[in-house]
């Protein structure tokens, strides 16, 4: 979770947005965290670089919990 949070905050910082401190499995990437499609694209690239998994490969992922599930086999 810490690593995912760190990557999310990197993406936010790159767009000049404030970092999030409170994050849980229900946090919605777009509604709660405020990501747009460019941010989501960047997030996938950064997660892929870290975990070697393309989280959006089989369709859209909405929440932090869903990211966790995708990365779970690791």
């Amino acid at each position: 979770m810490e690593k995912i949070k760190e990557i999310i905050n990197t993406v936010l910082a790159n767009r000049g947005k404030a970092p999030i401190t409170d994050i849980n499995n229900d946090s919605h990437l777009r509604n709660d965290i405020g990501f747009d499609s460019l941010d989501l694209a960047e997030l996938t690239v950064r997660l892929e670089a870290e975990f070697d998994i393309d989280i959006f490969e089989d369709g859209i992922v909405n929440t932090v919990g869903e990211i966790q599930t995708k990365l779970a086999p690791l």
Partner: protein
Amino acid sequence: MKLFYRDRATKRSINWEQFIEDINNTQSVPKYCYAQDYYTIFKNIILAFVSGNSITILDSDFSDDEIKQLVGEEEFAQLQSEIPINRNLDFTNAEEVIASLNKNSRNSKLYLFTSGTTGLPKKVSHSFTSLTRFAKISIDRRNDVWGFAYNPTHIAGIQVFLQAFLNQNSIIRLFGFDNTSIETEILDFQVTNISATPTFFRLILPLTKSCTSVTNITTGGEKFDNKIIQQLKKAFPNGRFRNVYASTEAGTVLAAEGDLFSIKPEFENLVKIADNELLLHKSLMGGFENEDEWYRTNDIVTIVNKNPIEFKFVARKNEMINVGGYKVNPHEVEESVRMHPDIINARVFVKRNSILGNIIGCEIVASNEELTEVAIRSYLQSLLQEFKIPRIFKFVSKIEVNRTGKVNRK
């Protein structure tokens, strides 16, 4: 004893007398020139033309498989074959070699392979006349010293070589060396003329000393931005800048000062712009097999003045990157990134992405180690639309270039 060719890589300096002796002592010319040594390539080109033979120039880094694909299995078997020269070469000076070039090259063809941005390179044929169509020959140019900054197996390299040769100039190799060596060669040999891609210049700048001997700088093939022009003016304070439009297929067609191009009167009916793309008439295409009357260059231009027509080059058509349905011009992005005071060079690359189709990345050569991704991005926010701003930055020590001296984006 005037210098003909100097090559720091082979530590050889060959003067004109030696070159003429080498020509006189050669009894055959290779059907395929597949050499790494620049001097061998130059010598073979001249030999083919003075003996009325044809020659195919191959890059020395082509693999056997690539060559088989390019020339076919049957021809591949003849890769080493030599064509005997059936006239006695007995030149006593450069003038005689040049006179022989003009007289005997009528039936000669020089075959090249275009670097082809997509798929397999295409074979293009040139004659001595088409290669020297725009060569400027005069007694005033007799003392020019050329900094040779192209791959000698590509059209621009061959054109520069012939321009220098026909004026009996000295040629100093600059291509393929590191910055320090290039600067040393320019200074030591008092180079006066350099023709190179914008990438070549971008990669050598800034220089540690100013090279005052250089008076003529020609560039083209890619977009050339203002920051580079400013740095060039500093490095070459006596340089006069000229921008040339040339393609492997057509040779040199347009020339201009700065980045504004116009169509020369003699080509008025042979060049046109349709849908912002530059088109060339097939009669300019040499031996290029082309069914349509107009050849699509894939070069996207923007018209600045209508009468007479003047335009600027914007991008290559197939270089536009589709990011979630938005078209991004990599040159525009690179130019904006390079405007950052702590950035020396930049190269945009494309990464496949499951959300947007493509995502833009950028390699950065920074002059300040403390430069951060966030800082570059916030700088770019005032210059570019959000979708054009690279999402991934990689800090690198140098930008790799392909065999033509252009940058790769894949």
